[in-house]
């Protein structure tokens, strides 16, 4: 089932890519335009994803069982946290946003329990901010909390 879903998604992407590339000027062989390369790539994608789609629907692909117990719930939670992070960073800045994600991950991964995880996450985030932003001068998103740390440094 997952092979069919991936094959359909890839094929849909290919169609969208081809439509997007069709508007670009193809030019001639003598004077190739910006659309030549995308058109070649699009045709290659169409053939390969088309074949993959045909294979996926024609024969049932055996999926090997994982040798270790799989945890899809954990992966969905972690993926969700990573996806939400850019939005959190935009509104909350580095320390609160990163703390929220790291704390959530520690809870999902069942590390030491909510209280310990809280302090571990907080420590990790502040330590990384001190090392990277204050120590190495890495550019990170700065808000009120981060400014307090900069002021403490002097």
């Amino acid at each position, binding site marked *: 089932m997952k092979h069919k879903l991936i094959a359909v998604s890839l094929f849909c992407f290919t169609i969208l890519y081809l439509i997007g590339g069709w508007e670009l000027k193809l030019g001639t062989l003598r004077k190739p335009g910006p659309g030549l390369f995308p058109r070649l790539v699009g045709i290659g*994608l169409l053939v390969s994803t088309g074949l993959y789609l045909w294979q996926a629907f024609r024969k049932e692909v055996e999926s090997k069982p994982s040798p270790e117990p799989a945890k899809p719930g954990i992966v969905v939670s972690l993926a969700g946290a990573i996806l939400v992070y850019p939005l959190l960073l935009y509104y909350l800045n580095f320390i609160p946003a990163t703390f929220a*994600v790291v704390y959530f991950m*520690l809870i999902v991964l069942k590390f030491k329990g909510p209280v310990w995880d809280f302090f571990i996450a907080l420590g*990790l985030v502040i330590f990384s901010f001190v090392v990277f932003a204050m120590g*190495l001068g890495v550019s990170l998103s700065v808000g009120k909390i981060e400014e307090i740390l900069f002021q403490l440094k002097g």
Partner: protein
Amino acid sequence: MEMWQSIVHGFSIALQPMNIMYAFTGCVIGTVTGILPGIGPLGAMAILLSFTLYMDAAGAMVFFAGIYFGAMYGGSTTSILLNIPGENASIITCIDGYKMTQNGRGGAALTVSAVGSFVAGTIGILGLMMATSFLGSAALKFGPPEFVAIGVCGLVLIIKLNEGPFLKSVIMIFLGMAIYSVGIDYLTGTLRFTLGNERLSQGIDFLPVALGLFGIAEMLETAYVSKQTASARKVKFREMLPTRNEWRRSVPPMFRGSAIGFLIGLIPGPAPMISTFVSYITEKKLSKHPEEFGHGAIEGVAGPESANNAAVSGAYVPLLALGIPFTPAMAMVLGALLLHNITPGPNLIQEKPDLFWGVIASMYIANVMLIVLNLPMVNLFVNILRTPMQILLPIIVMLSFIGVYSVNSSPIDLLIMALCGIIGFIFKRVGLQPAPLIIAMVIGPMLENSLRQSLLISGGNLGSVILRPISLVIYLVTSVIFVAPWILKRVSNLFDTNKDIIR
């Protein structure tokens, strides 16, 4: 003679305190990532790619060389002591290395592996020096059509040698090209696939895609299969000394493995891993005691461990001489160079001799460092395996966030990284490997620009683009590599059928 003067100059650069520190840090990080299953050198390089912005170009190269070589050393440690390959290039070492540990000779296997890696590193670096100088001078004769040929053939060979099925590799190559094509077309200034987004007009950066596909996807994979931590018995220093017979049996495989590894390293694809398999098969065929293989034959450790280290040096040749990365790890190295506005290629030796020779000398220093670090500290490194994944995964994610955000201060880059991570994880579950995609994304610009320049120069004559002497040789060699296994299989089937008829 000039080469030796250059390498002496390279050592004077490599021995600068900052470069020694970068080499040391790279070696330690590489060894740790080689030991920890699930976080390979690629993941580490992707996570740390943006931090190389804070180093000079030579420092960044030294740092990445340390990581890459260190991972090869680290991977062998867990393969030998715990039967856990830290990364792909150490899988074959598990067979005889772990058997030696079970027979009480694990310490000797570690020493042979470390010495073999050192010998291979030395031979590989000598080969790299000579091959790059030679190829670099030859490549000065290359024009756009030749670069089209190299790009096309590189991609074709990656499809051929990739671990995944043929069709899936082809899809990943085209996907990589499609990702590259987003953004402004530098020859005409036309915007392509930007969806009206200003940030996308600058194109999709290599870093968030690489970090997503190799860092975040690996992290999700590790969480999905919930890998367990492990611990090993301590190895005493006395146990680490091989017997005279073990030394005697190990030396020839070390040299053979080095030669095999270096040559395979020049070919596109997962060279370190392939070289270990080829070396193992060679040693088994040449051995007077093939029956010992699989039961703790020291040749089965010495050969492959030398081969994977030499392959690392070999993989640097196409990158430094032609500017083309044939492996994902070299794509990361290229990414680091591009962050410093340096485009490697045939002129690199002339234009940036300090960088080129400094990097080569640093590789040697990294090899010395690794042998000094790894043997006495083997027990300490093995203890790293006890680090719980529950703490390691959030740290990896946090470093990835910092790394990606620090380059452009763009939340869009973070979103691209997250999406690539999730897509990479899903792709892996259905056998779509990310390596061809990332290499295609890097080779894409060179391929498109060279193709369009070739067509412009030749007045649209495709024949003169393909039929140039050097291009033709490159296409022919690639065709032979591509078709030869199929022909050999057919011929061997024919012989088998004839044998049956004779019987």
